């Protein structure tokens, strides 16, 4: 969808290039995050795609067409653009801001109004806010309006320069989750710039790791960058806790669960004790018709004939197949049983995960 072919940029009056011979292929529907320290040319690279900066050499193709052979104004109207400070037009209302590109493109009023309504809903913006001015919005609302505005004319390509950097970490995490959700549905081709490796890992299908002077050090999926950093620069930039960061990317469903001690509520004490013995544990999960009820330990079964006579204790936390291994690990170290119990979304018991199993995944 986007391809950079040996693109360089030397700004007038400087000897060192800001970007040197950068080649990058970005597939349709993919989110590529350009990440690196300041001076690595990530923003310059992004701005060359919609010709806010013109490359000194090399070629940039969007949908197979050389951007330098297109009218820059028309090119930009076909590419969504979000910057860190958002840059909402202060003299236009929320609705007018969102309608900016459709208006420039000459859509009729009714179509624009429908589109604005739709986007307000997608981004969870209250319709009452349509007539407010940007100065009357909170930081998080402004960012939402900014992203909604960039999506207004439904461009196939989006350029996002640290779009969530201007808000506090809690709002940022929420905006990131919301955007991932929206992107899963829309499947835009996105070039996303950030200096925050955690944001890159979270948002990216692939990460382009850039070094000062616009040198591409590694271009791979977040999982691969964490597992096999190409060199010491990447390793250093990724930083500590590489293992934990990788765990955040792997879903429980991907590694499968282990068997654990489990009995039906109607089971006898002997059956429960046998299950414990089989797994070398002194507790057992209790289910009823497959649904998770809780757990009982050896001591509480003393003198009872069946599991049903004891009220099972609830798991303080359990994980689902969609949880990340990082969440599973958290569940393991905070539970008294030292395993993570895995259930599906309907609370049906699936099995357990242990530290050993998770660690094997990381070390292998």
């Amino acid at each position, binding site marked *: 969808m986007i391809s950079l072919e040996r693109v360089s940029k030397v700004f007038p009056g400087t000897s060192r290039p800001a970007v040197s011979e950068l080649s990058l292929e970005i597939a349709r529907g993919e989110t590529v995050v350009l990440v690196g320290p300041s001076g690595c040319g990530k923003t310059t690279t992004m701005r060359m795609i919609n010709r806010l900066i013109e490359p000194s050499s090399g070629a940039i193709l969007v949908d197979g067409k050389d951007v330098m052979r297109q009218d820059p*104004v028309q090119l*930009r109207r076909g590419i969504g653009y979000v910057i860190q*400070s958002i840059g909402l*037009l202060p*003299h236009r209302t929320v609705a007018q801001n969102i309608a900016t*590109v459709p208006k*420039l493109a000459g859509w009729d009023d009714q179509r624009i109004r429908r589109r604005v309504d739709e986007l307000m809903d997608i981004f969870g913006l209250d319709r009452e806010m349509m007539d407010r*001015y940007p100065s009357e919005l909170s930081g998080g609302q402004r960012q939402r309006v*900014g992203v909604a*505005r960039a999506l207004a004319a439904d461009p196939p390509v989006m350029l996002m320069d640290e779009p969530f950097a201007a808000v506090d970490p809690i709002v940022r995490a929420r905006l990131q989750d919301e955007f991932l959700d929206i992107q899963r549905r829309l499947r835009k081709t996105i070039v996303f710039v950030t200096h925050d490796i955690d944001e890159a890992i979270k948002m990216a299908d692939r990460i382009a790791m850039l070094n000062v002077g616009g040198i591409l050090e590694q271009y791979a999926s977040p999982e691969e960058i964490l597992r096999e950093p190409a060199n010491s620069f990447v390793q250093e930039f990724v930083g500590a806790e590489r293992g934990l960061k990788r765990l955040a990317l792997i879903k429980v469903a991907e590694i499968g669960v282990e068997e654990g001690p489990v009995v039906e509520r109607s089971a006898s004490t002997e059956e429960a004790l046998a299950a414990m013995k089989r797994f070398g544990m002194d507790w057992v999960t209790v289910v009823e018709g497959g649904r998770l009820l809780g757990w009982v330990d050896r001591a509480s079964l003393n003198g009872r004939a069946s599991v049903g006579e004891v009220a099972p204790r609830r798991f303080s936390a359990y994980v689902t197949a969609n949880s990340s291994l990082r969440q599973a690990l958290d569940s393991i170290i905070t539970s008294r049983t030292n395993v993570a119990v895995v259930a599906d979304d309907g609370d049906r018991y699936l099995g357990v995960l242990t530290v050993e199993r998770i660690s094997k995944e990381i070390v292998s």
Partner: protein
Amino acid sequence: MRGSSGVVAISTWQWVVDNRAEILRLLVQHIQLTAIAVGIGFVISFPLAVLAYRHRALYPPITWITGLLYTIPGLALFVLLLPFTGLSITTAEVGLVSYTLLILIRNTVTGLRSVPEDVKEAARGMGYTSRQMLWRVELPLALPAIVAGIRIATVSTIGLVTVAALIGRGGLGQLILEGLNRLYNTEVLLGALLSVTLALVADGALLLGQRALTPWARERTYRTRGWMPPRKAGFPVG
């Protein structure tokens, strides 16, 4: 003018009532002279300001020339123009217009330059042409500063128009001039009072107009950043 400073019996109020038609005529004339001066001044300064904004190199020469015009004392300018344009309205207006230029140009440029960089960057990135950028983004956002310039120009022109009476072009200055000639204080005071009131009313009206046009610019977010000219020293009145 009817009534005279010599007749003590005639009360001040009676004098005003007797001469109300003439006073009104001079007031209207004053407003006309001001409106023409500021109007023409705006028409000349607007393109110059946009030019100076777009091409930074043009800003110094433009403000240098208009600044030079601004420093010539009012009366001296009228005298300089007399051989060419005589005791005509042109003489008065050329002088008045030339004083508005510096104020209007500097305020407009200041307003355009204060448009936030990120707003322009986002607008360019969304595909505004440079013409659309000027008319739909930069000028609307510069409006508070532009109006601030018009307000200063209007108020100072209302003051300057009183001098136009010296070359027989009427306006409230004529009341002051006649009052001084006849040693009739009421007439002098009335001329001055009306001139000051007119300035205040015009200033307030323009401010209200600006507020109506810029509902987004609440005090907190977009304070008007106008440029004020240095005080003119030794301005010759009468």
